[in-house]
Structure formats: structure tokens, C-alpha cells
């Protein structure tokens, strides 16, 4: 244990692969894709998404669910799981020392279509007075603080599809700066609505594999043609490792390194030579006091867009001097839950360390010959690893790398 190690003591996952960490891990390891035609998207060009299995939010969260958008339902459910998993009791903790940091990539759209319709009709008196407080990016963090009695620093962090990872890194910094003793951090997103779906389709970012929705999310495959829109939330409980040990908490992994960089190149496309990814990796390794030879596995961003996977593959080869460790993209199963992705994948990286097993990349039939990576496919691979890196990238050129070590 290093002086600046941060312990992961609780995991909460609400993903298309399952409600709960065990359910999600099981589905991810089975390599079963969750992408399907989504009737709620209507007649948009690409009505495919990965949705969280039905769950009774009111039973978990109570009667106040009416005032929350779906991303908050997902975040709050994951937060409760994480706190339970950590063996913490919000009734007795020192709330002033509990921080909440939730990454959100895109503002919530639950109410936007009826609201714009009312606006066009001039029906101002019919507009919900809750539209603003429930859709702003901070709403999930705020509701978690209300529900759990967390009164320390709290915020939304937004770096597009790197948001969940950046939130975890920010929480690590808050703990190291002694601004809190417990941090509940991760990401949440619920973008399965016609507007984001149609707009991502207009960008050419979505897979259009309408004849085979299950096979639409196929990271690193030669036939990949875009990502699949997904929803989900992942929240971790983080504590300074010494504090976790002092209270006898079970530590799943140490969150040992955080590196972040910005391409400063294009508003949506990644930098063609992946320099920003490399810079984030270098910073994360230095933060963890490790070298590339210590990293036994990379949970890649691996969205399944032609550009991302090729550039990420090249960047990993550059970072690891031509010998990257085994890689997976769990997005083959979960799709791409935007701002939640980095946090869900960090949680999966923790579980990979614990199980010493790398989940497969679903739908990977034929590795793109332009990608020189050892991508785990078809079945989970038992693999000895002491440290794992999780990489996330976002529109706007945000790159975040997290390093997790065996406890």
C-alpha cells in the first residue's frame, strides 16, 4: 500500500448487462450483447440501443422518483448499491466528509420534447417547473447527496464520453487533498431518446447494422461501423487506503493512478496520432508509480467506431512500445453509455482484477488487420494481473486513463 493509494471499497452498477455488480459481471463475461431494437426511439434512422433491464425505481428509491430524470434514477440506484457494498451506514457517517462526484456527458432529455412542443404552442403555463433542476448535469449528484446525507463537496463532472472516468479521477484528487474522507464517484447517463439517437446518427457515429442489432456493437472487428447508444450508471465508493483499513473495510482494488489530457485538436474527432491518449497514459503511470510492464490488461474505450478503435489501437502500441497487454472492450456487451462508460468500465476493471479474468469483447469475429492488439474474444480469459488500466476518450478531445491495482 502506497501512502497515496485510494481504496475502492464499494461498487454499484446499473447497466444494460444487469442491475447490480454481480449481474453485470456475469453478462459481460458471457459475452452476450444487449443491443436490440428499441421501440421507444420511434422511427429514428437507427432505432437500436442497449437498455438497463426493467427495474422498479420507486421500490429502490422511494416515492420521490417522480421528480427525477432517468439518469438520476440510475445514478441513485448505483449509489445505494455501492454504499451497501462498502458496508457504510449513511445514518451514522460524518456527512460533512462525504463527497459525491458524478460524471455526466450530455444533459438529460427526458422532458425536452414535450417542453419544446409547449414552447412552440406558447403554453408557458404548462411547462414543468422542475425541468431545469431535474435535467441539469448536477441533478444526479444533488439527489444522491439528499438521499444519503452527503454534505461534503459534490459536483457533476463533464468531459463527454470520458466523464465517468474524469469523475473518478476528480474524486481521487479530493481524497488526496483531504477535502473529504469518503467519495462516492462515477458516472450516469440515460440518452436513449429520439433526439440524441437521431443526432448521433447524423454524425455517422452509430452502427447502422439494422439487419443484426445484436451484432451492432463490435469493437475492434473489421466489420464495425459505429457505436450503439446505451444507458447506465456506475458508482464506486473511494476512501484513502489507510482509512479503509482502519475501519476494516473490504478493499476490492486500489485506485492508484489518474492521468488526463486534452487533444486540443477537433470538437468531435480524436487526434489522428492518439497523442492525447498517450499523454494521459504516461501521466497515469507516473501518478501510480508504475511502468508499462506493470500493466497486465487494458479495458479500452473501444466504442466500435472505425476511427476510435484504430487510433486507440495505434496509441496503445505506441504507449506499450509494440507490446500492449491483453485488451477488451466491454462495450460489445453494454453498448456505449457515454458519460457513464468510464465509470462502468473502471468498475469492470476492478472486478477483472478480483477475478483475475478478462471478459471477452462481444461480437469480435475478425480482428481489424490494421489493429495490432491482443483483444480477448469469445470467452473470458483467466489472466494473472496486478494492475489494470482503463482508458476513456470524449468528444472535444478529452482523454482519461485510470490505473487500478490488486489490493
Amino acid at each position, binding site marked *: 500500500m502506497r501512502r497515496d493509494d485510494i481504496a475502492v471499497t464499494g461498487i454499484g452498477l446499473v447497466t444494460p448487462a444487469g442491475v447490480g455488480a454481480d449481474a453485470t459481471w456475469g453478462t459481460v463475461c458471457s459475452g452476450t450483447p444487449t443491443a436490440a431494437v428499441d421501440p421507444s426511439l420511434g422511427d429514428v434512422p437507427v432505432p437500436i440501443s442497449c437498455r438497463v433491464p426493467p427495474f422498479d425505481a*420507486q421500490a429502490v428509491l422511494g*416515492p*420521490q*422518483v*417522480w*421528480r427525477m430524470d432517468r439518469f438520476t434514477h440510475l445514478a441513485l440506484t448505483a449509489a445505494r448499491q455501492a454504499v451497501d457494498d462498502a458496508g457504510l451506514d449513511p445514518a451514522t457517517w460524518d456527512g460533512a466528509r462525504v463527497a459525491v462526484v458524478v460524471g455526466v456527458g450530455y444533459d438529460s432529455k427526458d422532458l425536452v420534447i*414535450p417542453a419544446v412542443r409547449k414552447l412552440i404552442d406558447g403554453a408557458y*403555463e*404548462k*411547462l*414543468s*417547473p*422542475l425541468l431545469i*433542476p431535474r435535467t441539469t448535469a448536477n441533478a444526479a449528484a444533488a439527489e444522491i447527496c439528499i438521499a444519503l446525507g452527503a454534505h461534503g463537496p459534490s459536483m457533476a463532472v463533464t468531459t463527454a464520453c470520458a466523464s465517468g472516468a474524469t469523475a473518478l479521477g476528480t474524486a481521487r484528487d479530493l481524497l488526496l487533498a483531504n477535502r473529504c474522507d469518503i467519495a462516492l464517484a462515477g458516472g450516469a447517463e440515460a440518452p436513449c431518446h429520439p433526439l440524441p439517437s437521431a443526432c448521433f446518427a447524423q454524425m455517422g457515429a452509430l452502427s447502422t447494422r439494422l439487419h443484426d442489432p445484436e451484432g451492432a456493437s463490435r469493437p475492434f472487428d473489421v466489420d464495425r461501423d459505429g457505436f450503439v447508444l446505451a444507458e447506465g450508471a456506475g458508482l464506486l465508493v473511494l476512501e484513502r487506503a489507510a482509512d479503509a483499513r482502519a475501519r476494516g473495510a473490504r478493499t476490492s482494488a486500489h485506485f492508484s493512478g489518474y492521468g488526463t489530457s486534452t487533444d486540443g485538436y477537433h470538437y468531435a474527432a480524436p487526434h489522428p496520432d492518439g497523442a492525447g491518449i498517450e499523454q494521459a497514459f504516461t501521466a497515469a503511470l507516473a501518478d501510480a508509480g508504475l511502468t508499462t510492464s506493470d500493466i497486465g490488461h487494458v479495458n479500452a474505450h473501444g466504442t466500435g467506431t472505425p476511427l476510435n478503435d484504430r487510433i486507440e489501437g495505434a496509441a496503445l502500441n505506441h504507449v506499450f512500445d509494440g507490446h500492449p497487454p491483453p485488451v477488451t472492450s466491454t462495450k460489445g456487451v453494454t453498448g456505449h453509455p457515454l458519460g457513464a462508460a468510464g465509470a462502468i468500465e473502471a468498475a469492470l476493471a476492478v472486478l477483472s482484477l478480483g477475478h483475475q479474468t478478462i471478459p471477452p469483447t462481444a461480437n469480435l469475429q475478425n480482428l481489424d488487420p490494421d489493429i495490432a492488439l491482443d483483444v480477448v474474444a469469445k470467452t473470458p480469459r483467466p489472466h494473472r494481473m496486478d494492475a489494470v488500466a482503463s482508458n476513456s476518450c470524449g468528444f472535444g478531445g478529452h482523454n482519461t486513463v485510470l490505473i487500478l491495482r490488486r489490493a
Partner: protein
Amino acid sequence: MTPVYEAVKSVLTSHFNIPEDTVRPEATLEDIGLDSLAVVELLCVLQDELGLHVPTGDDALKSLHVTLAQAAAAVDQAQPAPVPETLA
């Protein structure tokens, strides 16, 4: 109670998830856990889901100490007068 009271009650139980046994005519808006924004939301839902007219610019629902019976009466008053059958 009036049809409007029953409509208010159904929205309180179905949209706001307020337990049915606490929604009583003599209970105040505050008693059932609504705040001032939730009251405006209630009026929006009554318009959206039930097509009711609601009091606007009226002080009747500005206080959380109004009872549900009084609130329902204020909404009832805001409904347009029915078209007399003699015109039919």
C-alpha cells in the same frame, strides 16, 4: 367529493406516488409533502393528463396550508362553465 377532487387525488397517488390513505380532503398540501414547485407541477399534470383548466394568477394555491378540498375547489372554479343543454 367532486370529480375534480377525485382527479386531483388520482394524480397525487399515481404521479406523485403519495400513499392513498394520506390523501384526504382535510390534509394540506404541506401535509402530503408537496412544496411550492410540486404544486405547480401538480397543476401542469392536471392540464397535461386530464385536460383540466387550472387557476392562473390566483392566490388560491400559493399557500401550502391550503387543504386538498380547498385546492380541488379552486381548480373546479377554473373550469369553463358547461354549455347549457338548451343551446343544443
